[in-house]
Each structure stands twice: as structure tokens, then as C-alpha cells.
């Protein structure tokens, strides 16, 4: 049932069969691939190339006539731009803290879930909800939770004698508050992926460990984790990619504020492009973020031995 790789190599026998069957040229691959390929080029590849070209230009949207090639000037300016470093730092903190919590909490909940005898289907259903509901609704739910006057969160914490907190309305608490939202929204993703992996562990293996007197921690660390690793890595890969790209929830909740306290690279790229209308600079920022994501992804693919084919 489970294939713990990203795709899998075109099965050798399949490929050979496909070729050996007949020596005549078969038209299907060409006919089936060409339309999709052309569209992919037009809507995916071309925009990236165009973004690269734009990033090498000084392009202030209100004055398209003054659009001029400036080489790597935008990139050079970015490295001297404190606001870039500020947003870069926020991106790293946001991605790093979120992913750490999500992996740990994800493993923990997935293991608990795998030990449940009843109600697993129901729990999975509840876990799906935060992932699937419209991001705009997620952002809105949390505005409601964080609200100073109506906020459920402050109310519940006050019952414990804590708070009140200012959450997204305070420069020092806003980033942790956003991390809390993503942990709420996306930890279930990790749980579900890891839960699928835990189902792949043969019972005998766990039983044998128990007979040998392993405690739950040892069971997890030396028996479950090795089997889980490919799943963990695939989850990590997709989670890190998505985390670094997060735009909507942050934009709606804080817009990068208060001030620039929660401005991530995504938000800064947007602000530069669509508030300051500096398309060249914005494209350069976006491509740097792209480069960051690709590097992180390659790192995970290498280090985690994720197979892509």
C-alpha cells in the first residue's frame, strides 16, 4: 500500500515492456504530453524567466517608459537593505520554529493516535478540518481568538490566571502568535502523514521490542523512527516549502505588522511589488526567496534521502 518515496523510478520492466512491445513509433506519449507541456511552459516556465528578467530591471510600475536594464543592481541593493534582513530573519524563525514544533508534536500525536483502538476515523476527521478550511476563514477564526475584547484565548487564559496577552497587536507577541496559528493549522498535516507511516510498522517488531523490555521512548526512537523516516522526510519537505511560502494567513492577520514585526520575505516581496510598485526589486526579492526554498528543499532531499523520480 505504501510507497514512501516521491514517486518511484519508472519501473524498469514497465519501461522495457513499453519499448519492446513494438518497434514502430508510438504516438500516444507525444500526443498526450505536448498540450500539457506547452501550457506548463507558458504558465510556469515563462513567468519564472520573465521574473528573472524583471529582477534585472529598474521597473517602477507607474512609469513603464523608464523601465531600464540595471544588471544585478537590485540584488546588490537587497543585501544592503535592513528591511530585507529583517524579513529574512523572520522567515527563518517562522519556518524553523514552526517546523520544529510540528515535527515533535506531529510525532507525538501520531503515536498516540496509532495506539487508539476506537474512534480513529473520527479523530482523523477532526484533524482534517484545520488543514482544509479556507485560509481566509483560518485567519478570521484567529482574529476572533486573538481579539482583545471578544477573544476566547484571553478569556480561557484568564481562567488560569494568565494574561491578558496582546497577541497579534503587540510587536513582541505577534510572531509567536502567527507561529501558534500555523502550528494549529498545519500540525495535523504532519500527524496524518506520520500516522500513515506508523501503520506500515509490523506489529511483531513493536511486540518484539516490548518483550525485550524497551520503554515507550526506546520503542519510538529505535523501532518506529527508522521506519518512519521516509514519511517524516516527505512531510518535512512539503511542510518547509509551504511554510516558507506562507502569505495569506500572515497577510490577513497582521499584514507584516505591527510595524514590520512580522514581515516575512513573502510579505516584504508583496509590499515592495504591490504597495511600493517596484516590480524589479520585488521580483529580485521573490527570486531570492525561491532560491532559499529550493536550497532548503535540496538539503532535505539529500539529507533525508528522499527519492524523486
Amino acid at each position, binding site marked *: 500500500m505504501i510507497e514512501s518515496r516521491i*514517486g518511484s523510478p519508472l519501473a524498469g520492466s514497465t519501461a522495457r515492456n513499453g519499448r519492446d512491445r513494438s518497434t514502430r513509433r508510438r504516438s500516444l506519449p507525444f500526443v498526450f504530453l505536448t498540450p500539457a507541456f506547452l501550457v506548463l511552459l507558458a504558465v510556469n516556465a515563462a513567468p519564472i524567466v520573465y521574473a528573472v528578467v524583471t529582477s534585472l530591471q529598474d521597473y517602477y510600475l507607474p512609469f513603464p517608459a523608464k523601465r531600464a536594464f540595471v544588471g544585478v543592481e537590485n540584488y546588490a541593493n537587497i543585501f544592503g537593505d535592513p528591511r530585507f534582513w529583517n524579513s529574512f530573519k523572520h522567515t527563518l524563525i517562522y519556518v524553523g520554529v514552526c517546523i520544529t514544533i510540528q515535527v515533535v508534536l506531529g510525532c507525538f500525536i501520531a503515536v498516540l493516535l496509532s495506539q487508539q*483502538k476506537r474512534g480513529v476515523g473520527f479523530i482523523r476527521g477532526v484533524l482534517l*478540518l484545520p488543514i482544509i478550511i479556507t485560509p481566509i476563514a483560518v485567519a478570521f477564526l484567529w482574529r476572533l481568538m486573538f481579539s482583545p475584547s471578544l477573544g476566547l484565548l484571553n478569556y480561557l487564559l484568564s481562567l488560569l490566571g494568565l494574561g491578558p496577552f496582546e497577541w497579534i497587536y503587540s510587536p513582541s507577541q505577534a510572531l509567536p502568535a502567527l507561529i501558534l496559528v500555523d502550528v494549529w493549522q498545519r500540525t495535523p498535516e504532519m500527524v496524518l*502523514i506520520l500516522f500513515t507511516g506508523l501503520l506500515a510498522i509490523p506489529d511483531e517488531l513493536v511486540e518484539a521490542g516490548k518483550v525485550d523490555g524497551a520503554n515507550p521512548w526506546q520503542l519510538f526512537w529505535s523501532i518506529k523512527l527508522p521506519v518512519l523516516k521516509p514519511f517524516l522526510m516527505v512531510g518535512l519537505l512539503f511542510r518547509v516549502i509551504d511554510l516558507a511560502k506562507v502569505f495569506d494567513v500572515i497577510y490577513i492577520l497582521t499584514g507584516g505588522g505591527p510595524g514590520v514585526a512580522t514581515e516575512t520575505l513573502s510579505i516584504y516581496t*508583496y509590499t515592495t511589488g504591490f504597495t511600493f510598485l517596484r516590480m524589479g526589486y520585488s521580483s529580485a526579492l521573490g527570486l531570492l526567496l525561491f532560491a532559499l526554498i529550493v536550497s532548503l528543499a535540496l538539503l532535505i532531499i539529500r539529507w533525508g534521502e528522499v527519492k524523486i523520480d
Partner: protein
Amino acid sequence: MTNARTTSRRRPLDLGSLVGTVTLLIFMVAFFLPIAWAVLMSLKTQVDALSMPPKWWFVPTLENYLTVWQDGRFATYARNSVVIAVSATGIGMILGVPAAYALARFRVRGQKAILLGILSTRMMPPVAFVIPFFILFTRLSLRDTPQAVIIMHVSFILGFVIWMMRSYFRDVPRELEEAARVDGCNDYQAFWRVVLPIATPGLATSAIFAFIFSWNEFLYAMVLTTMKAKTLPLGIYNWIAYEEIMWGELTAAAVIAMIPVVIFYFFIQRAFVRGLTMGAVKG
């Protein structure tokens, strides 16, 4: 799927598993609470909604939903969302499904490069991706049209469909096509009459995922639309920005936007993990 549940033996008093269950329940409450809270809020009158400490027990009202529904704007946004999501999904499926089949079954030159290329576009931050489209559509006077948003949505749906359907087509036993060929089918007939019907669950799953990606999408719709082509997430966003006091109505609108997504997802629950990982992990 049941092996995990039979692992621990039944003991008279299993304290460990009781603690586990209780911990799990606490997490479930934490994940569910904000959603439940919003749904409750949407059923409250303005007075109940604003009361502090929060009212858990109150007379529910559908007034907020009626107000939202009767607001002409909401219907327009909902219609735009449906038109855009259906079109983008349709285009993505028509182009992507055959391509996925070709990549799953035939030796294609540059296959790995194509798949990696598609995966790498998933890593492109949407904010950077939207700029070329914004410039192009502005120049073509295509901004604020459903077509513009549809094209943008195809850009992420198509790659997803190809990865997803490729993983489903590879699950179809190859012998079936061989048998079809023996019966005199050519490649196309084998695909159309034999493979496609078997892959129906995969088709449905991919289409539902694609639909919901489009339905939930916010940034592209925000950048590319101003008035006429606005989608539901944007409509709600504007309400949040300008009418912050109308909590009841806003929650009602948010709940309505969630409903199709929740209904659809429960159909594809089993394939959920597969969709999250573009076919990499088969749940």
C-alpha cells in the same frame, strides 16, 4: 489499516493507554475549539456575540446567514468562485490526466527533468510568481476577468494533477492494457476504455483537490481582481477589513465558505495524505 489498533493487549487497567487517550482528546479539543467557536458565533445575535464572558448557551438564530445570503455581493463572489474553480479544475484535468498517463507508462525523454521542473515550480513563492502575470494581464486589459484568475490557477493545478494522476496510473496493473491490446485496442482505446474507468477514484480525488486549491486561493485573486471577478475569499477579506464589528455576519460568511470544502474533503478523506504529498505517500 487496522493492524495498529490491535497492537496493545487488553489489560484490566491500562493506565498508560488511558493517559494517552486523554492527552489525545485534549489535543482534539484544541484543534476543534476555534472552529466550533466560530460556528457558534455565527449562530448568535449581536448581543450574545458581544457578551463577555462568552455565552456557551444561547438561543441560536439563522439571521446572520440570511443577511449574508441576501447581500447581493456574496452571491456574486460565490458564483465567481465556482466558475473559476470549475474551469481551472476542468482545464487542469483535461491537460494533466493524459500527460500523467504518458509519464506513468511510457519512456519519455527528459521525464525526470519534466517532473522535477513541475516540483520546482511548486517551490516558487506565489508573490514572485504573480508579478509577471500581473504585468501581462494589465497590458492585455485582462485584469479583473475570471479568465485571468483561471489561467493563474491552472499554473498550480496542472502540475499537481500530473504528479497525482501519475501515481494513480502506476497502480493500474499493466496486464489490463496488455489484455486490451490483445483484444485489438490501440493505445488510445486502451487508455480510454480500460485505464481511465479504473482510475476513476483517482480522477475524482485529484479533481476535488484541484477544485479546493482554487476555491481557497487568496493571493492571485487579490492581485488580479478588483471588482467584477472577485472570489469568495476576497469578498470575505474585504468585509473583515471594512466591517470589523459585524462579527456574526462575518463568521456566517466564513462558515459558508468552509462548507463546500468540508463536504468535498470528507469524500476524499482516505486519499488525503496522498493529496498533501502530491502522490508521494499513499495513505
